[in-house]
């Protein structure tokens, strides 16, 4: 069954809400925060008009949004929420619990910088501060991907081999508030792709279970082993879902994607919507004969070690463009993980890192061209600082 070929212009937030509507989400508990607001507003309106048969719980904080989502998912309905920045930070303790309890909650994170100072604009500070929550984490580059992955996330999360909450990250404002062209999908096709949720465990008086019991030291380690293995092993089912979607729509997704890395000695690495800007820069540099390529990390958790090593196989210099800081740490968060993934290899490229576009600062294609020059100069100089915040005045 082929999807529509017609493309409709709409705000990405609306496309995401439409995806959640098509996925037949049943319980939505959300709290407003810029720049996620349009997603939940539109969902609210769909529910109010009977266009989505769901319960919308207008909770009084993001912490309660995730808590209510746990309650709903534990009772056995398809559950969705969305947040950004401070909201994600506020629900932090509950995020760990959602994944430990193996509840298939889907959450859109409209990535936004963390306070302080307060910033409503885009960077990845919010999700990078939540690396260890034990969720599946995916990054999208544009509206189409946001639509696609919002639907796929439910199928991945609810798979009985997975049973893991899943976060779909899209850049706040840059994507959420921008009108793009989307190829949507009809309800029948989505229903065929995404059958109704079959809960694995649920709160039901007919078969009472206890969820959230505490673990003594003798048991905690074993509980976390189960969690680690489940998250790592979700890799296979994730690729299966992406493959099925590719056959359905012609849009194929991979954990690590590349743009013109053939013969590239210098490789830029980035996540999210700035990848498209970086692609423009790579094309420009290639036209000038500079052998630069781009690697885009789509699957962040579970981390795709093998795919990354393969994508960076020919590189001598990797320039990681972080969208967040790890203050006081060795490097930006993505740079640190890339470096860690490449460490076991006998032959390692130089891995430098630059934090770009913090707090929503605009990143033009020229920035990437400059980063390539800066990185190459660093390498030539000798032992380098290896991590910089790009574009600081002063």
């Amino acid at each position, binding site marked *: 069954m082929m999807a529509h070929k017609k493309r409709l212009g709409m705000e990405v937030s609306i496309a995401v809400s439409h995806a959640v509507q098509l996925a037949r989400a049943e319980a939505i508990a959300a709290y407003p925060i810029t720049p996620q607001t349009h997603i939940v507003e539109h969902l609210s309106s769909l529910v109010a008009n009977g266009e989505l048969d769901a319960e919308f719980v207008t909770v009084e904080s993001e912490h309660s949004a995730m808590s209510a989502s746990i309650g709903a998912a534990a009772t056995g309905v398809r559950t969705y929420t969305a947040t950004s920045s401070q909201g994600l930070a506020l629900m932090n303790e509950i995020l760990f619990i959602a994944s*430990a*309890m*193996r*509840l298939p909650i889907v959450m859109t994170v409209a990535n936004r910088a963390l306070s302080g100072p307060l910033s409503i604009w885009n960077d990845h500070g919010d999700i990078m501060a939540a690396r260890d929550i034990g969720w599946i984490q995916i990054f999208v580059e544009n509206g189409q991907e946001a639509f696609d992955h919002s639907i796929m996330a439910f199928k991945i999360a609810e798979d009985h081999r997975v*049973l893991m909450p899943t976060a779909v990250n899209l850049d706040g404002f840059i994507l959420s508030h921008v009108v793009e062209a989307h190829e949507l999908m009809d309800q029948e096709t989505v229903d065929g792709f995404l059958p109704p949720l079959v809960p*694995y*465990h649920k709160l039901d008086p007919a078969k*009472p*279970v*206890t*969820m*959230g*019991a505490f*673990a*003594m030291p*003798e*048991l905690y*380690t*074993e*509980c976390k*082993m*189960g969690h680690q*293995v*489940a998250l790592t092993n979700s890799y296979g089912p994730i690729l299966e879902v992406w493959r099925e979607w590719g056959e359905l729509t012609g849009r194929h997704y991979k954990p690590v994607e590349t743009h013109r890395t053939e013969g590239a000695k210098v490789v830029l690495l980035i996540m999210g919507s700035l990848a498209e800007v970086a692609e423009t820069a790579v094309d420009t540099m290639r036209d000038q004969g500079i052998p630069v390529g781009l690697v885009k990390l789509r699957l962040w958790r579970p981390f795709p070690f093998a795919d990354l090593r393969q994508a960076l196989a020919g590189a001598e210099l990797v320039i990681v463009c972080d969208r967040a800081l790890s203050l006081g740490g060795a490097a930006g968060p993505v740079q640190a993980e890339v470096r860690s993934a490449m460490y076991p290899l006998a032959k390692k490229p130089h891995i430098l890192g630059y934090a770009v576009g913090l707090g929503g600062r605009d990143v033009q294609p020229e920035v990437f061209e400059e980063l390539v020059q800066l990185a190459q100069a660093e390498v030539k100089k000798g032992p380098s600082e290896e991590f910089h915040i790009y574009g600081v005045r002063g």
Partner: protein
Amino acid sequence: MSKAWDQVTWQEIEVGGVLTEPGTARNYNTGDWRSSHPVWDKTRCIKCGVCWTVCPEAGITEQPDGYFEMNTYCKGCGICVKECVTGCIKMVLEES
């Protein structure tokens, strides 16, 4: 989990740490805690059931003859003694 819980392997733990069987606390004998236990004087017991009502442990069970006795879970708190309507219960030290 029928194994000793410090022998359980990670594979044996249910998905999400869910305990699939209700009421398994009954496997834990809280009676080991008590240092004294209640004894009923049946000549004065009126079988009213107040003792059974006020036990936090559900540690008192009605017998077939309608009188009440402690069961294995009694922690020896003594509330039943204080609440007994006729005062027919008294606490007796456990043998050491």
